[in-house]
Structure formats: C-alpha cells, structure tokens
C-alpha cells in the first residue's frame, strides 16, 4: 500500500536540476511527465545521434520561468541535489568505481562476442557467394573459420562506450524524491511584470492551450491550440498591465509583425479579481 502511494506521489513529481541557477530536466521519465502535463519547454542540448546540427536539439529541457512556477505551485517539482562526490566517503567512491569497471568489462565481453559473430557471418556470406566450390577452397574457408575463433581479439579501443546523458543516482528512488518535493526553491523573479506574465500563462494553460516563448516574434508567448509538434501557433500573446498606456507606434509594430507571420496578436492583461482580459489585433482592410 505504502509503496503504491509513494509511487503515486513520486509519479507526480518532476525532478529538476539546477545548472547555473537555471532549472533543467534531464531524465526521459521527467520529460514525458512534463509533457503530459501540457507543458512544453525547449530542448537545448545536442542530439546524440546528430550532434552537429541546430535543427533538432536533444536533452536537457529548459523550462520557462512561468512553467517552473506552475510546477512548484502544483507541488510537482522536486529539486535534485547536485552530485557532490567529495561528500561521499572514500569507501563509497571505491565501490562506485568498482561497479563502473565491472560494467565496462561486461560490456566489453558482450561486444567482443557480437563482433565475433559479425565476422563469422561475413565469412559465411563470402563463402556461399563465391562461385568456385572446389573442395580445396572449402577446406581453406573452414580452416579460416577455425583460426578465427582462436585468434580473434577485440581491441579495447574499438569498444563502444556509452556516455550517459542524465546522471544515474540514488536520488531517483521514489522515497527520496517524495522527500524532496516540498523543497523546490522558487527563484527570485518577482516583479509586477513577472506576475502579469504568470497570471496570463496560468489562465491560457487552464483553457487548454500550449505555450512557448515568443522572443523572436516580439511577444511574450506563442499560443498553440494543441501540441506544438502538431500545430502552428495561432496567437502571439503580449502581456501588459491594465493601466499601462501603450504607444501607438508599438501597437502598430506588433500588429504589423503579427500580420506578416499570419498570427493574431493578443494583448493580455490581468484584472484585479484574477481573471484575464484579452484584446486581439487583426489587420483588416478598409472595406
């Protein structure tokens, strides 16, 4: 029972790691959980299968400050401690090193077995595909197969080593994560502007939209009607204070921008009672 409950609790928490005072998500389960909550974030690392391109990025996942705040409000964020190997005892360190080396050795043996299989299969193919089927050539092939078994050596330098993206550690056990749940430090990002943005974010999220950052479009958020991988953004949300007066040139600029990229511009302001009012700008002709 308790295990089930702990698993439930742990399954609702997303583990965040701080890097240069910026929260990042590293593990696949965390990212999946995050996405299932309707939050998108942005990937900023290199994709392991195609590291030298900027089109598709890989882990870690970077969070918007509003997403982070939403997580902490829902009590779904867990701070993972920084791995501090020096804090551990020498004994534990030695154990870890032994484990790592044992793992390497096991991987080496597996790989060398696989390499041998590969070589044999290649030889068999070469044997069967060759045209001459004289007895002497078949004997030669058999002899080569036998020597292969004895003389084959898989060099250590040819071994493929896995470089893990996320850190493996004890903190991924459910009980530790549950313990850390209440401990998420909210970053010092208070200010009327941040509050306004957060309220708009929360309101739009509540209506089922997906939101990402829109710095390149001159706004605060890009609003998608569904998952960003499946839809184009419909709105560019610009967060303003209700009392704030906006220069007409700025309104013109943002309207122009929106019409050029075929998105509707939403001017969003949060009212004192907690709701948010929206004004949409669309470029229309004189007719």
């Amino acid at each position, binding site marked *: 029972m308790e295990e089930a409950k702990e698993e439930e609790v742990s399954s609702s928490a997303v583990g965040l*790691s*701080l*890097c*240069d*005072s*910026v929260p*990042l998500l*590293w593990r696949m389960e965390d990212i999946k959980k995050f996405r299932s909550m309707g939050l998108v974030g*942005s*990937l*900023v*690392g*290199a994709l*392991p299968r195609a*590291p*030298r*391109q*900027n089109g598709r*990025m890989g*882990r*870690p996942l*970077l969070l*918007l400050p509003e997403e982070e705040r939403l997580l902490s409000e829902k009590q779904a964020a867990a701070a993972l401690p*920084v*791995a501090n*190997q020096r804090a551990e005892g020498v004994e534990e*360190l030695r154990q*870890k*090193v032994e484990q*790592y080396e044992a793992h390497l050795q096991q991987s080496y043996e597996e790989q060398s077995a696989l390499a041998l299989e590969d070589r044999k299969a290649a030889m068999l193919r070469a044997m069967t595909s060759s045209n001459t089927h004289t007895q002497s050539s078949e004997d030669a092939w058999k002899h080569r197969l036998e020597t292969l078994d004895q003389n084959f050596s898989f060099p250590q330098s040819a071994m493929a*080593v896995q*470089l*893990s*993206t*996320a*850190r*493996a550690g004890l903190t991924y056990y459910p009980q530790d994560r549950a313990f850390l749940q209440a401990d998420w430090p909210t970053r010092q990002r208070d200010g009327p502007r941040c509050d306004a943005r957060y309220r708009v974010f929360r309101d739009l999220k509540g209506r089922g939209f997906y939101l*990402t*950052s829109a*710095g*390149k479009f001159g706004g605060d958020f890009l609003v998608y009607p569904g998952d960003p991988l499946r839809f184009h953004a419909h709105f560019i949300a610009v967060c303003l204070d209700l009392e704030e007066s906006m220069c007409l040139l700025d309104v013109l600029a943002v309207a122009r921008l929106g019409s050029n990229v075929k998105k509707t511009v939403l001017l969003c302001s949060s009212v004192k009672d907690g709701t948010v009012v929206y004004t949409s700008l669309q470029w229309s002709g004189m007719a």
Partner: protein
Amino acid sequence: MGFSAEGKRYLLPEEALYLMECGSLQVFYEDLALSIQDAYEIFLSSETVSLHQYQVFGHLKRLGYVVHRFDPSSLPSRYAQQLNLPQSGKNAGNQLKRKHDVSLTSTSAPSLSKTLVPTTDTMSADEHMKDESVDESVAMTSSESTADESSTTDSAVMVEPRKWWTSDIIEDKGSNHRNCSRSGWDFSSILFPDLGSKENLSGSLASPDPSLLPGALAVGVCDVASWRSKINQRKVKGSPEHRRRGVDNQRQGWHGKKDEEVQSCKNWTEFNDLMARHQHRRQDEQAEHLWNREVTPLHDPSQPLPTRELLDICSVIKPTCLLEGASRLKPAHEWRISFVVYQPDTASEFKKSKPRKPYTHVCVCGFDGPVPELQTVKLLTSQSGDVPVVFAVVDHGDVSFYTMKDFELPTDVFL
C-alpha cells in the same frame, strides 16, 4: 581547440562540454566517467561560462565556425595602431598606402585644433581629403556642422607624426604671408584700369607705378586700342516685348518711387541693402503672426544660411557614428565581448599561432535583459577594433544574432 600549458594539453570547459555532447570525449573525475548532466553542472557557472554563453558557443560550433574566447589584449592598442606596425595578413601589403592611418577619435586632437586653425590652409586640407579615401578604418563624423572642425582635427592630428614634410609647406605659406604684410600693399588704392567701361578712355594705358613692379622692371606705355575693339561693346538687345515694355524684367513690380530709390543707389552695396529692406517689408507683412506665438519657425528665410546648416537645424535626431566619443567611455562589467569567431571554410588551414582576421566578435545577452544602450554599443565597437560586433541574444534555446551598423542619412547638398 584548447591550449598547452606546462607541457600538457588543456581544454576549456565549454570546449570539453561541446566535445562530450558530440560523443568525441569522455571526461573522468576521480576515476568515474562524468555524465553530460554532471558536466553541465560542473563546467557551467556564472564565474566560468554561463549557460547562455555555452548555448551560443555550441550553436556556432555546430554550424562549423571556429570559436575562441575573446582576449582583449590580443587586439593592437591604439598606440600600436598609430604606429601601424606590420600586421599579419592583408595589412602588410598595404603598408605604404596606410601612412596616414590615424584613428580619428584620439582625445588629444580637439585641444590641438584650436591652435592650428589659423594656419590651416588649402594644401593640407587637400591632402587630408586624399587620405580619407585611402583610409579604411574611418569614422567620419556625419554631422555636417562639425565637418570643418573634423578637418582641422584631422590635420591637427596628422601634423604631429608628419611634421617633417608638412612643416615645410606651412612655413612657405607663412613666409608668403609675411612677405605681403611687410610690403603692405593697399589694394584699395591700386586702381585697375577698366577697359570695358563706356566712357572713352584713351587708347593707351600709362605705365604703372614702378614701386608696384618687381625688381628693375620697366614697363612702357601700353596700346590697348586693339583690345578694346575686341571687347563686345554692343548694347544687349532684349526680346521685342522686353523692348516694348521698356523696363527690365526684374524691375517689373517696381514703379514710381521705388525706381527713384534704385536710381539713387550709387553702388552695388546700397542696391543690395535696398533689396533686403524691401524683402523684409514684404515678408513681415505676410508672416508676422508666425513669430508672435510661443512656437516660432526654426529659421527666418530672409536670413541667408547655407543649406547644410539649414538641414542641421531641421534634423530631429543628432546623428552620431559608432566610434565617436567611444574612447571616453568606461568599460562596464556586464557587457563584454565573449567570443571571437573565425570563418568556417578555413578550419583546415587555421593556425592558432597565426590566426586569420576574425569574422566577428560575439557579445552574449539574454532576451529578458535590457537592450544595449548607445553607450554600450559604442564601447563594444571601440573595444573590438575593426571587427564587427554581433549581439547573440538567447531566448530559451533560440539564438538570434543582431548587429548594429553605422548608417548615414543621405543629405543632398549641391554647392
């Protein structure tokens, strides 16, 4: 990548992290391999390389550029630029032409310009014009009203290093001036004969005053009858209508007493004054109400003003160029150039000991942060020498590149 120190090869943290992400490097700490998460948390911090800077670094490296950390001491100082030491690469060939490569923003120049204004003459101004076309790293002050000042500034600065050949010229001119003042010619008393006047002069000119002639020159009487016959002394005939009206076109509106006023003028000065007075009278009648209120016109059209100055009065924004006044700015800590980027196509030929001219300098900032002010932009541009500065703005994983360029609004001035 990396550097060597004490016989060992070292890698900078951002380079190590990039190679790890590419899968080319494994980093061990205390006999355990670091995961990429560990590497991010250990290598990236605000003291060494921030996450924003690493994102820009990684982005550029993945595109193929060669990216190094910026070292301010690697740029030649202003003094070294003035000396024009032979630099590697393309500048070595142009050494002869670049004799006058002096940065135009040296602060000592304005003080010198005051003393040298009287002796500024056409000769040095001409040379200055010629040099500017050759000079590549020029910061032309675009405000036209200070064009004169800048030319004197330039000549002032250039006099310093080029003393031995400009001083001759200045001395010659000075000696000329001195000669003239010594003899004290009074041009108002020397009368030049008017050969074209209608009054009948004698057909010959008397010999001039011997004191006006140089040396022992003796000039006799000059027969000018043949010259005078060549001068067209025919009266100019206007169009038939013109002749019919019997008045000049210009004097159409002038009847009655104005005609008498004109006739009472004895010379051109008085005539100009009369015209000016009439202009004023007419204008004042028409537009007096404009000058009575709080907001007055910028300029009274009756006052003569060169077109350049008029355009300056009308301008809303004071133009400035990026390098103007940059040497006086104090360096700020938060805005600094992070990386120097070299073109990717020379990666195979790239040598760390003798790098090519850099492509750009990159300054990293975030989208949430403030937009750089003009002061900051000026400071960074002056710090980076003649290499353009690019602002890499990071917005949650997206990197955008912006650059500020000098732009001069065209002013059509036909003199």
